[in-house]
């Protein structure tokens, strides 16, 4: 459990000395300038003297973290998931003993190239908006004959569980590398998913009064040393969204976007977001659409 905040010094001789606590850890209490500061009880604050100096050292920290990230990216174990995923895609599985090669990810039967960059989207056969993971569940059920429960069971990897889902996600997403995000809102159900996703993004609740927006609706802020992208703005949303899924060094697992949302809500102190639930797809639609035009570049590698 990394929410106790591991602050570790990562010293590469003469090059990078990075004080790192890259934890996407529990969003904690925050106290941003609120729109209306009218409390009579709040005492005045004298100007903090060291603000400029602290901003400069914080820039140096950010640059050092960037260097650490570049060093990490040399050799990404996500390759292993991609290769395994390709094998599973082409393997006859399930009660119907079929491969997934006829699975329609939105660009036609069996087209994997570029498919992820236009998801989530509306699918006529299910009359639903589906993200990649929910579409894979649909294909496992319709083509391979798995039950809905089997297809969605234990989707997140751990030392003793290496699910097909994450490998398939790695394989499909890798086939959109270099493709521009192009999520459509033409179908009314796509538009509705976007609007519902937006509502979920701003919904404050739980024992900490957090919403997604608590951490992800401002520019240039950090939690501990982890910078927090403003997901309501195109450029940072593009940078963040196109970097998932990711191989997580600290976990030794490839993590899908469904996992990213699941784990954010855990830290938001919400109940468990259900895998491929309508709300999860709606939120993904909101975030993916905000990233439109960004060049997809995952699976990436993160600390």
């Amino acid at each position: 459990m990394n929410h106790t905040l591991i602050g570790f010094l990562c010293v590469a001789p003469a090059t990078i000395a990075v004080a790192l606590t890259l934890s996407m850890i529990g969003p904690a209490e925050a106290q941003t300038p609120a729109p209306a500061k009218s409390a009579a009880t709040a005492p005045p604050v004298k100007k903090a003297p060291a603000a400029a100096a602290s901003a400069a050292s914080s820039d140096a920290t950010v640059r050092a973290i960037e260097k650490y990230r570049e060093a990490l990216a040399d050799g990404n174990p996500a390759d292993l998931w991609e290769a395994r995923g390709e094998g599973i895609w082409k393997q006859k599985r399930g009660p119907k003993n079929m491969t997934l090669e006829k699975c329609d990810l939105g660009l036609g039967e069996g087209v994997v190239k570029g498919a992820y960059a236009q998801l989530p989207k509306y699918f006529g056969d299910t009359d639903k908006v589906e993200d990649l993971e929910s579409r894979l569940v649909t294909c496992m059920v319709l083509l391979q004959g798995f039950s809905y429960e089997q297809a969605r069971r234990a989707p997140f990897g751990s030392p003793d569980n290496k699910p097909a889902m994450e490998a398939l996600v790695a394989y499909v997403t890798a086939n959109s590398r270099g493709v521009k995000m192009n999520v459509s809102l033409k179908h009314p159900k796509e538009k509705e998913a976007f609007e519902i996703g937006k509502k979920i993004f701003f919904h404050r609740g739980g024992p900490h009064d957090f919403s997604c927006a608590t951490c992800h609706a401002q520019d240039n802020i950090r939690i501990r040393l982890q910078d927090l992208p403003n997901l309501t703005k195109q450029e940072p949303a593009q940078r963040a969204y196109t970097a998932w899924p990711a191989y997580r060094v600290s976990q030794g697992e490839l993590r899908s976007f469904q996992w990213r949302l699941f784990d954010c809500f855990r830290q938001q102190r919400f109940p468990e977001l259900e895998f491929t639930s309508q709300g999860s797809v709606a939120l993904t639609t909101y975030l993916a659409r905000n990233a439109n035009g960004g060049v997809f570049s995952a699976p990436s590698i993160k600390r």
Partner: protein
Amino acid sequence: MKSNYLIAVVVIFTLLVASTAHAQSKSAEDRATAVMKASFKERGQAKLDRLDQDKAMALCTKYALTPIPKNLAKEIEAENLKTIPFPKDGKYLGDWKAGERIAQSGVGRQFSDNPANPSGGNCYACHKLDPKELSYGTIGVSLYQFGKIRSYSPEIAKYAYGKIYNAQAYSACSNMPRFGHNQTLTETQIKDLVALLMDPDSPVNK
């Protein structure tokens, strides 16, 4: 006569459109809430009622993208201020060393946490405090030299206690959790945090 008739038609039409639009936005709201509720399941200590909102959070959500009107902000602050049970002994400062441990710890309230264990405050996730801790967040303001800058007075100590207990009492729609109000931290823990901010011996004030 004819123009009166026209005006009446236009007025009725406008009213109809407005009320339909209102009904639609209302039902879109309800639909989003229903989808959200159906998309989570309870796990460990995190029950589904965590998606519910009190008046303050409902308003802060409603005005997430636009500034909240001043009168509503004042209402939220006044109502939340009333919830703060300031310590009966009139003492606000505990042990800053214990406060530093609470400020470092992000444990608590997640579905993966054991609710029998005490929670942390995770202050460093958002605030700069002891300058020796380089790993601090910037979602909140710097609290370095909190007491030294603001004075070590009982009024400031009381404010610090109240702010940690219920941040909405001082700044409506603040991002900061209501640590006492929502029973994340105990009175003793909050006093320890106040000491971290207000004790002249605390590294925060060095």
